[in-house]
């Protein structure tokens, strides 16, 4: 099963954050690698959406839709923001 990238969750991210986020920069809390969210590794075919660091593979973000509510875990990120 091939993984996708952060582009595939552009809609979900905009739903959660209220703004376009694929161009935002995420920094991995495990290895420190930083880059656009669009370039993260994304696994969509799961009970939730899992976003992993392209450099070290650790989980950055997890999104689960629980009864129409978005549950979001960003603990794998050190930072997430514009620029």
């Amino acid at each position: 099963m091939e993984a996708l990238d952060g582009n595939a969750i552009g809609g979900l991210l905009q739903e959660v954050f209220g703004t376009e986020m694929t161009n935002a920069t995420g920094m991995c809390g495990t290895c420190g690698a930083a880059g656009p969210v669009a370039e993260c590794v994304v696994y969509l075919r799961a009970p939730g959406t899992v976003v992993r660091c392209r450099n070290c593979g650790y989980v950055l973000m997890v999104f689960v839709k629980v009864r129409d509510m978005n549950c979001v875990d960003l603990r794998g990120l050190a930072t997430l923001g514009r620029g």
Partner: protein
Amino acid sequence: MSPISRGFHGRRRTPAGAEGRVPPGQYVTSDFPVLSAGPTPHTPLEKWTFSITQEGGPSKSWSWTEMRGLSAETVTADIHCVTRWSKLDTEWQAVSLDTLLAQVEHDAEYVMAFSDGGYTTNLPLADVTGGQAWLAFGYDGKPLEPEHGGPARLLVPHLYFWKSAKWVRGLELRDDDEPGFWETYGYHMYGDPWKEQRYAGD
């Protein structure tokens, strides 16, 4: 409610005679969807072990050869994924977890299954004993493929299939029920498909 898409049915068919076998909110599929939260691990068999561990108590580990030397059986089961697909009459070649757990002395009430790649899932001990759970290494008469959890995965068909951890490497015996990977993110601690226990609070 979203507008209906004229003529759209999706892939679902409930085969005749399947009534009563499909839990609420599920649909029957004839293919075998591959769901994953991470890359497929590839542990060579000579490095593979399955361990039952506990804090402050005896543990036991089996190599691949040792595990395959245990008595195994063919299990036919209906499986139900929390993403709403169900697959009927799946056939597995597996070692009963009763066989493995019997070799470790313990009085634990819960287990945390752990897998290559970091996946975990929690289960009551009562649900992985009494002929309800297996370590499966074969599917449909062939070795279990990596994308479906090979070389070996848990098989606990009476619960939602996220509890049947792929690429499983062992069970940690525990006194308390702690949430595993999906349970931490909002999925149900137990996961009975017949009570539609998908999310925490269901």
